[in-house]
């Protein structure tokens, strides 16, 4: 009988669920805001995805949970986002050797071995610089919608320099740029450069080896993609659905649990 596997990624802002079959094909994905209890939201989302796919809980071979809420979520195994991300990305991009994952709360650089295993990794320290949260705060300071960032930033010819590494300081720096009449697009481009340079520095810590895959929510932002690619001096591969790659990795690990 065909078995199915579920990966659940409970992040700080959103919950992602991926359903795959024995042949490791993606049958469905779902995503929603985590809200107050990511765990309950994830449980509901998982059930819904299974029933929407015309399946029942009985045919689910195994579930692996990842993300901040992984510890308390009822699953067959909980695995860190780093291992899941590595798994998901090397499945989608077998030639990937470096994964850059910029999410809402943290950013990670993962160096992969040729077999897709984690060779080394680096994460941001307890500071929002170089994360999606940083972009969000700065966009709010400029009264720009999250979705508009990349479009506006791409029109900049003269990116502003954001030097502070502290989010609070950077915000005041932006306000002073605004007060001196700098263009919104230039400031936004400066913000994207700042995120990129922070992450680029982390990349140098693990060592940079192509192919480089950029994933996580911020990979949707073309402004950061361009800035990062320029700073690293390599083109970046971006997955079509960067938000769900960790959940996909979790589902793939679930399928391996069954075999073991």
């Amino acid at each position: 009988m065909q078995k199915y596997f579920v990966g659940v990624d409970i992040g700080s802002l959103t919950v992602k669920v991926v359903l795959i079959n024995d042949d490791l094909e993606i049958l469905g994905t779902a995503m929603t805001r985590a809200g107050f209890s990511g765990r309950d939201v994830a449980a509901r989302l998982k059930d819904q995805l299974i029933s929407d796919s015309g399946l029942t809980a009985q045919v689910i071979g195994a579930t692996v949970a990842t993300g901040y809420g992984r510890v308390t979520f009822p699953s067959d195994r909980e695995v860190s986002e780093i291992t899941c991300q590595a798994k998901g990305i090397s499945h989608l991009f077998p030639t990937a050797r470096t994964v850059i994952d910029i999410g809402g709360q943290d950013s990670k650089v993962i160096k992969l071995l040729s077999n897709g295993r984690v060779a080394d990794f680096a994460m941001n320290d307890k500071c929002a610089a170089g994360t999606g949260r940083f972009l969000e705060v700065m966009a709010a300071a400029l009264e720009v919608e999250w979705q508009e960032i990349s479009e506006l930033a791409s029109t900049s010819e003269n990116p502003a320099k954001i030097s502070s590494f502290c989010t609070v300081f950077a915000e005041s720096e932006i306000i002073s740029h605004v007060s001196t009449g700098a263009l919104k697009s230039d400031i936004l481009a400066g913000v994207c450069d700042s995120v990129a340079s922070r992450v680029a520095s982390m990349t140098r810590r693990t060592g940079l080896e192509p192919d480089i895959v950029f994933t996580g929510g911020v990979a949707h932002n073309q402004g950061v993609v361009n800035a990062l690619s320029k700073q690293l001096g390599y083109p970046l591969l971006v997955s079509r659905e960067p938000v769900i790659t960790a959940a996909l990795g979790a589902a793939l690990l679930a399928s391996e649990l069954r075999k073991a």
Partner: protein
Amino acid sequence: MSEITEHVKNKSLELLLEEATLNGAARILRYPKSRFFGYFCSYFPEELILAAGLEPLRLLPDTGNSTPAELPAYCCSLAKGTLDMEIRGKWQDLAGIGFTHTCDTMQCLSGIWAASGHSKTIDIVPPVMLNTSGASRYYLAEMHSLLNSLMALTQNKINKEALQDALKLCTYTRKLATELDALRPDLPSQMVSSLMRAGQVMPRLDYSQALEKCLPALKEMAEPNQHRLKVLISGAVVENDSLFAMIEDLGGRVVADDTCTGYRHYSGPTVMEAEDPLVDIVRRYTEMPPCPCKNRSLNERMAYLNDLAHQRQVKCAIIVIRKYCDPHAWDAVALSESFRNSGIRTLTLELEGADVGGQERTRLQAFLESMKADSEL
């Protein structure tokens, strides 16, 4: 910890685990007859405090996020937390507080404490270059000055006998701690961490007696570790067991410990040969495994830790850095490189205090997962 204590019906063990949880907070209630003397750093000679008729109490912060006005934001939470407790009157009962010159922060803290706290402070400035010309002579002179300061503080003479007794007690305690350390591979990490810390926050005689009593039970409890990943941990002060418990929870086992509040506090040779007990004491503190603030030779610390890793057959190491702790942050670079060269994978983990949360779990878990993946291959 509770699940461990539950199935351990050993009074001495229970006492030690409780003391470690309290970190000295209930000292007045529990030991009304003892007079405690606070100190920082393992380089403050406990022998002298004991010889002065006082009980050494290592000062540990009760929370990781105090912000006393006297210190800037970029100062470590050990200094901030303990100074905040001083200002809140938590150390009022102490006979005094001893500072050792180790890092820049401790050096500054001593002066700040003297200016803004209520407790009497005493300093000792050991040599930084422990093997350099004149270092041992200087160290001995500093030890004599410290002895004089303690006598002035207590208004009591400290005789040779008292020093020898203190030295004996410390030697015995260190011997017991070494036995405990040898059991590490087969006991839960957080339990050993607790037992090591207990010996720095309760009266020393009570500690050594309790530890002696529970060692047989610990040996019985020891279960040969088949599948847990052996981990070496190095770092500064770790005031609770949260990190050790998380490592255990994620399938690891701390089999080698080089933290200031862990086994490093007890390790190193203890000698009792010289006519002047202070000479023996100086020798012990000179020869104990160095912390990053001290230099015995350029790479001695790296060599010691690599040996330790080798002896305990460790394949991975976790270097814990308290945020804004410069000496450990500096050494982390050379240390992880030397570990890497001996085939030991290293994770550098920066913590605000001793508590670990979701971010740390992700890092630790990913690190241990990648180690397991390697061993499965």
